């Protein structure tokens, strides 16, 4: 892969990788480390014939693996990253968004990644299953558990309303089931 292709990949999918790493690791510096490592690994790939979806899926899988590696090393750190602590946020943080981010951050790791990929990246449960290497039914189960936990964390919101507030018209506004 050339420097130009690497640069293009970062422009196109950099936010996806960074958000995923931030969500998983709950630490901005660790997320930057994973980001750098993922794209440097991409540089070593013969990715010139990959289409966009293939490239994005590879980046997500690699980022998840690196997050898992780093998470094992730094699990002792614990805690969540508040939305106010996220660097270079594009707009001011409102209380509801901060609560939702914090609530998702408190989810167990497996539930958190399912929520992030489903609601944040718009993947369907089958696609998430392929990315994570688990059956789609497992993903759906995790999403159900996640919504239940978020309902508790957020004080009794409707499970769909608490995170999705989706009408289905937007391609990224899918529901789990």
């Amino acid at each position: 892969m050339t420097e130009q292709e690497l640069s293009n990949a970062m422009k196109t999918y950099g936010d996806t990788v960074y958000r995923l790493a931030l969500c998983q690791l709950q630490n901005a510096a660790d997320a930057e480390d994973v980001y750098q490592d993922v794209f440097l690994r991409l540089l070593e790939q013969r990715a010139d014939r990959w289409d966009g979806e293939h490239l994005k899926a590879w980046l997500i899988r690699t980022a998840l693996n690196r997050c898992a590696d780093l998470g094992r090393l730094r699990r002792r750190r614990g805690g969540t990253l508040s939305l106010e602590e996220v660097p270079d946020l594009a707009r001011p943080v409102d209380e509801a968004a901060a609560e939702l981010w914090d609530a998702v951050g408190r989810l167990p790791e497996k539930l958190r990644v399912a929520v992030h990929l489903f609601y944040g990246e718009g993947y369907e449960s089958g696609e998430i299953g392929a990315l994570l290497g688990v059956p789609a039914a497992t993903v759906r189960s995790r999403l159900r558990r996640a919504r239940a936990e978020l309902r508790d964390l957020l004080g009794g919101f409707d499970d769909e309303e608490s995170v999705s507030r989706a009408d289905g018209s937007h391609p990224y506004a899918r529901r789990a089931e």
Partner: protein
Amino acid sequence: MKNRYQELTEAIHTPAGLNDRVLFEARRRAAGAAASSCREKRGWGQSLPETGPMAGAAVSRGWTQPFLRTAVCAVCALALVLGGFSLRPAPTAEPGTSAENAGVADAGTPAQVLVPTFGLTAYAAMTENAYGPAEDGSIAFAVGEGCTTPEFGDFTGCLFGITGENIAQVKMSIDRGGLYRYQQRENLTEEQRTAYRQAMADGSLAPAAISQRDDGTWYMPEMTALGQSVQEDYDPAASYGFWVPAEDMAYNTGLGITTECQMDADYFDGGTLTVTVISSDGTERTQAYRLHSGPLKIEFAEDNSITVFPELASPEEQKNNYFIYGIYAAPED
């Protein structure tokens, strides 16, 4: 309509400067890989020919690329020609000579003045090793840890240091491109790392990789463009490198990082680097170096290190990709 979680995550973007840091690291690795290509293309892990230019340059089997990257710059069994201070009678001071500035205590009486002598050492950022010049004073700078951004230009990674004793100041100039100062910042605290990231994000500091060693300590190179000439207090720990301004560097040519690194090294081919050291009493010594770029001759040692020579590889060596691209400086009379 977007869901709430997507709305909030869409406000999160890759921090400013992070992409540049990744590109910097990619370029640094590419420079290291350029060295390793000579092995890969020759058939890594195979014996060198028993005859021909590579005869006797035995390479152990089972080398790995990371090791080579380390070995590339762990260069030189060459004797280090370090500078020193010579105490000698002052020559007759003539207008316009450095001796004119020397401390002459009593006119008519030969005074003892400090005449600084110095030498250049090449600095290998990847291994933090310094190595010295050949016997004729010429010295090779392999392309190493550098950084290219559209804003800051190309810090080529061809680094050198100035050695000597009691040098108070150094003065350097180059007739094309420019120079930059390279300082390795060590044992960075979290606060320092945050401050450096912020400085990179707001464009006040050239992007660089902040890295962690196995022992947990953090470090990063800090690179500062100095322009075509600089005079500053002598810091034996400082390294200087060849810098291509943004408007002149090879960038996004479509030829790849390695070729662009070589093009920027070629920018200095035929140029002149002038180094002057100044002692505390004002005595100066100046040496001009003619710069050349190209595929430099290398030799492998039995301990798997590589020696880079201040001369071009032979046509046969070049044909076999048995070289490291870089710059070398030859002292002018």
